[in-house]
């Protein structure tokens, strides 16, 4: 059998299972604790390696260690927006219910990571650059991203009808995606105070592996944390949205 067809078929089935709120709920009951556990393990390992094993930087000394929170949250802030915009497009094109759930549930998590990236960046900038805040291309565009997240949340809650709100938010999420390449390339396009890319750059990461390993562990851990939060929030939302359906009522009866 053609392996491509098999893989394609697998994703097709997964898509259809995830598209049904009930199936999604079943799957997420299993994935949520797994994601939570992976988050704890990876972050614990990353924190230990980052704080106690990784050597101090030749210029910044120990203050560079904030990188292990700052960089993963900044990556996640972009990643979550991409997930939101993709899910929004899927929802609008194929009218997939669960895609809207992903859009709505991702927004506050994304906003939190963006805020974390901005705050840790500010704490880092104060000793190293000599300023808390600078109207630099990277910093400004990241701030715009925070406002976009907040705008998406505000738009969703402004509608009385949930479904209309979901569609409107999906449109806004798709429109706002233009900001993502701007943020990513801002350090290359404009000569900014913010440093260029350390990890994803031509010629490999500009960092020894003793410093890089904890960073990657933290990034992976944070991603699982996002998955964990997303599944938790989505579970709640699915139960709330479907509270009048048979399967949710059966579920509640089972508990009682």
């Amino acid at each position, binding site marked *: 059998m053609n392996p491509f067809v098999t893989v394609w078929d697998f994703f097709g089935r997964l898509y259809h299972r995830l598209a049904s709120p009930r199936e999604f709920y079943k799957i997420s009951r299993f994935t949520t604790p797994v994601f939570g556990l992976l988050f704890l393990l990876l972050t614990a390992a990353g924190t230990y390696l980052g704080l106690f094993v990784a050597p101090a930087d030749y210029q910044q000394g120990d203050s560079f260690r904030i990188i292990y929170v700052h960089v993963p949250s900044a990556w996640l802030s972009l990643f979550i927006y991409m997930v939101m915009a993709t899910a929004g497009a899927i929802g609008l094109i194929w009218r997939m219910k669960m895609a809207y759930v992903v859009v709505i549930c991702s927004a506050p998590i994304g906003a939190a990571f963006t805020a974390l990236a901005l705050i840790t960046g500010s704490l880092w900038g104060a000793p190293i650059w000599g300023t808390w805040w600078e109207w630099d291309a990277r910093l400004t565009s990241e701030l715009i991203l925070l406002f*976009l997240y907040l705008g998406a949340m505000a738009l969703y809650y*402004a*509608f009385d009808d949930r479904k209309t709100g979901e569609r*409107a938010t999906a*449109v806004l999420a798709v429109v706002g995606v233009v900001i993502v390449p701007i943020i990513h390339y801002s350090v290359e396009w404009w000569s900014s105070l913010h440093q260029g890319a350390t990890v994803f750059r031509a010629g490999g990461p500009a960092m020894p592996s003793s410093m890089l390993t904890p960073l990657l562990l933290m990034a992976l851990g944070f991603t699982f944390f996002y998955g964990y939060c997303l599944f938790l929030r989505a579970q709640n939302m699915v139960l709330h949205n479907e509270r009048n359906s048979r399967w949710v009522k059966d579920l509640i009866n089972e508990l009682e």
Partner: protein
Amino acid sequence: MTNTFMLYAMREWQLLFRNSSTLAQPLCFFVIIALLFPLSLPAENALLQRIGGGVIWVSAVLATLLSLESMFKPDYHDGALEQWLIQPRSLTLAVVAKVFSQWSATGLILTLFAPVLCLTFRIPVEQIWVLFVGLLLGTPSLTLIGAIGAALTVTLHRGGVLLAIIILPLYIPILIFGAGMVTQSAQGADITGQIYALAAILTLALTLAPFAIVGALRATID
């Protein structure tokens, strides 16, 4: 195609001229906001000259934002918009015509009037030209992007603040390039980069915003 565009555009212009207050309001607002700055800041010509470009840009952004709320609302409330939705004619073209006439009644007029304001800020003539070109390139993008927000909030009773929250972040790049152009030319630097950047934003907005506006209208009107 041009037929549909002209049909809707003519209708919009007729409506604008019957309702001349909608034409005058953004301009008055623009002038008043801009004049608040010389009144509230120390009366130093050097200071006014330095901030003038930025102040005029901020005023233009706010005046555009103010005019956006009434862009789709009247048509939504009297049912004209739902008639547009069920026409066999292209809704995208109708929206483009609407944005174009909206811009000609706000952005274009503000741009034409901006040089007069520049005189109160003692801005030298060369920079007035820079500001004029910047506004001419930037204000259509403001209306195009803002119309997405106007379409998203058309069914909401109190959509004004929300409109500002979702649209202003998207305005920031335009504001940075537009106002930066004036500052840079005052320092004698080259401004071709900013002109290209504003033109790029305008091209992108002109290509994609109409579809986003149509999508937003179809998503929210129920």
